[in-house]
């Protein structure tokens, strides 16, 4: 397995950005030393590296909390295998909360 990195950008919206210092876009370089990255691994990585508190408002049971929509390159993750989707270089991942406001 060759090392190197996977460059993706992660976007938070619909109020989910509040959990990430109100920063909507995060450009990430993920190490490829330990194999490929699927969305399940990315969600766990975000929880462990980008959140200081309130992890339960983003993560539940190895996935996002129900009510947070996930899109990869503007496609609903329900069409992509959800947490099993394998990330590619340049992917744009959106996490959009439906749980805020009305």
């Amino acid at each position, binding site marked *: 397995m060759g090392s190197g990195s996977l460059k993706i950008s992660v976007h938070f919206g619909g109020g989910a950005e509040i959990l990430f210092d109100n920063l909507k876009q995060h450009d990430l370089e993920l190490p490829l030393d330990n194999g490929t990255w699927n969305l399940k691994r990315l969600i766990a990585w975000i929880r462990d590296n980008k959140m200081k508190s309130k992890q339960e408002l983003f993560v539940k049971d190895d996935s996002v909390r*129900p*009510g947070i*929509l996930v899109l990869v390159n*503007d496609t*609903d993750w329900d*069409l992509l295998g959800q947490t099993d989707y394998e990330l590619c270089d340049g992917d744009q991942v959106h996490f959009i909360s*439906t749980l*805020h*406001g*009305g």
Partner: protein
Amino acid sequence: MPVSCTTNCGRKAILRRPKTGTSLCKECFFDAFETEVHHTITSGKLFFPGQVVAIGASGGKDSTVLAYVMKFLNDKYDYKLNLMLLSIDEGITGYRDDSLNTVKENKNDYQLPLKILSYQDLYGWTMDRVVEEVGKKNNCTFCGVFRRQALERGAVMMGASCIATGHNADDIAETVLMNIMRGDVARLGRCCAAITSSDGALPRVKPLKFCYEKEIVMYAYFRKLKYFSTECVYAPNAYRGHARNFLKELERIRPSVIMDIIHSGENLVFQTGIKTPQQGTCSSCGHVSSQELCQACTLLLSLNEGKAKQGVSKKSHKIRST
């Protein structure tokens, strides 16, 4: 591998609809979403030509999508409605002042007249001051009762004959569950209706009644609509929050659950002889009320007399009118 749009239009699907399980491209999704709202409006006879409609606009996702779609359908199908935006400024620093800016953008983007009415002007109290007075436990009761009446008063001032709100399918399913859990049979019986009216009060209509929250957010995302999504700075409605989380977890297992709960709510048959409140008018402000004094005036009186700290009595929960 890309999934194709179920309609065989040849385009790539961008979402799976929770209601039907079908996969649609962006264009077919817009069309399906808008057509369903159109059907809700026409089959439920929610409006009539020439009607002045006040759209309750908070700047949030639901009312932003509602304003956009109402404007779009009014133009497309020539409903001949006179649409206006009505916003209530509760006086919550860092929350409503920001969201009102979003409503002002909607006003310009959609070219609809906007009226903003404040709790301060109507009641002499901002929610910031109410919270100082009553604390963070019961403040949502004050806010909800005041907003309901404020919308009514604002709509009357605008010459509107109905109020359209952005309540979506998830909201209604939550309300069914909450009414069951509270044993509130009177509300359970009417909470699913797309149009609710009581003598003297303006009818309230819910054109987004069958729209899933997921689709509303996806619609706003793909239409690039600007909306405001910060949570209210005061204690959230904890009871609704539990119902909401429960529903969202069920939805993940079985997406149709939201429509199924609404279907159940619509088809419940109630025993005759259950006492429902008689509608009259408030002796103080003249608005519709099932009691001598309406709930807004009761709460206002308690604030002005400095008695609101004692909390909201259980009795006042039972007299809320729809």
